[in-house]
């Protein structure tokens, strides 16, 4: 008889082993409360700034008033909580510096998000549509769009998101390809930032910075190390770091406390699960040894 075949020991006789089989509803409850409480009662934990976020910040600070930047809102509503703080903080800083913004969305679902953030941020900063910023909207096929924009932005987008012919937009009067664009910012929840690097940087030598989800950020480290990506923000923490650098407390910094507690709770559950696992394994081995000796 193997240790696995042994009958279970009553929970009362193995309290630590219970930790290996906690009810998932308890986990859900603890995580829910753990995330909600810091949002209601902020801990204001200090946010350290990474070198990736510093490089992202410096790329934007190097821009001069009047420079033109492409801002790609490459995400859909599912990742809004993580990505919106980056888009808002970046756009606000670009407007503060009087940089002109050409916005677009590489996902159809991103158009509603981009339109809202552009409208609200432009209103706050007193920016005019057509001269200070434009929104090109969504174009099918991101790869062809990125490559074609390097040849002609007006040909790629004959009209903007609102149906106005791009030839009539003052901002595009002297800007029709990447040669007049100083920087491309991709706020992306997928591999879209990598595509901007491949197509806009690889073929046209454009300078790229990106904001990514925490999961995706891990995948774009190689591009940052090689210099193909000038800087990036990783997840909500990246947004909080950029807010810290620009001196504006937004939803990125507000969310950091909740994320800290959530991560700590997940780690605590992993530790508890392992304690239970080792206790149970040790008991089974002891029982098997006794059975073998007997």
């Amino acid at each position, binding site marked *: 008889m193997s240790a696995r075949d042994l009958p279970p020991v009553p929970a009362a006789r193995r309290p630590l082993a219970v930790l290996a089989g906690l009810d998932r509803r308890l986990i859900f409850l603890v995580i829910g409360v753990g995330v909600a409480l810091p949002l209601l009662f902020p801990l204001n934990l200090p946010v350290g700034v990474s070198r990736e976020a510093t490089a992202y910040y410096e790329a934007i600070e190097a821009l001069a008033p009047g420079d033109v930047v492409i801002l790609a809102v490459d995400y859909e*509503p599912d990742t809004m909580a993580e990505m919106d703080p980056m888009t808002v903080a970046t756009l606000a800083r670009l407007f503060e510096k009087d940089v002109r913004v050409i916005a677009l969305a590489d996902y159809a679902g991103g158009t*509603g998000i981009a339109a809202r953030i552009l409208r609200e941020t432009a209103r706050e900063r007193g920016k005019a549509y057509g001269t200070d910023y434009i929104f090109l909207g969504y174009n099918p096929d991101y790869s*062809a769009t990125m490559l*074609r924009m390097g*040849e002609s932005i007006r040909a790629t987008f004959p009209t903007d998101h609102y149906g106005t012919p791009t030839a009539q937009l003052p901002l595009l009067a002297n800007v029709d390809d990447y040669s007049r664009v100083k920087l491309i910012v991709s706020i992306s929840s997928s591999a879209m930032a990598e595509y901007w690097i491949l197509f806009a940087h690889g073929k046209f030598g454009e300078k790229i910075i990106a904001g990514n989800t925490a999961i995706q950020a891990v995948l774009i480290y190689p591009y940052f190390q090689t210099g193909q990506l000038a800087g990036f923000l990783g997840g909500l923490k990246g947004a909080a770091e950029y807010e810290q650098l620009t001196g504006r407390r937004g939803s990125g910094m507000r969310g950091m406390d909740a994320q800290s507690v959530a991560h*700590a709770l997940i780690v605590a559950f992993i530790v508890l699960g*392992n304690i239970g696992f080792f206790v149970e394994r040790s008991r089974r081995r002891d029982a098997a040894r006794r059975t073998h000796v007997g």
Partner: protein
Amino acid sequence: MKRTGPVAFGFVIGMLMLVQHFTNDAWITARYANALDWKQVVFGITLILGVISLCLHHWKKIARRGEGWRYSILTIGGLVFMVVAAVVFTPERGPYPWMFENVQAPMQATMFALLAFYVASASYRAFRARSVNAALLLAAGVIVMLGRVPLGEMMGLGSISSWILDFPNLAAKRGVMLGVGLGMTATAIKIITGIERTYLGKGV
């Protein structure tokens, strides 16, 4: 012709996209621009095909009262409603943006937010140090998870987390990227030369 035509077309377009990268010739550049424009048109048509396919699938389900057919009514109803709302009121005003802001966005965000609960539960059940390899993976995961938030930084895990991302993670990722890159190049050459023809579909 059914096979030769598409393979020849693939060869011409594939070679055009390859050659244009090494020349500034005006004629080739113009054809390259044409190819990119057509690529977007083809992509747009695939979207239409997708919508037709979705409607047919759900229509058949409703017709034969298949499992969950009521949800299919909701799917088609939502699709028709959003199209009509966008056409009648434009995508910038009226019910279209309202539905996006107040129905689609919160629903998608909610679904994604639920991941936090499932990740917590799955991590608790799956992350067990059953072997040395599993223990190493577990330790790295815990350090990065904590090192990427202020709480972990206060515990001094920020620099260790950065080291893991900068060296072991980077080395593995770069190896994968090189492998994928070589694989993509090989596949592209096979498609251009007509060796790889599975994209043509069955029976070709």
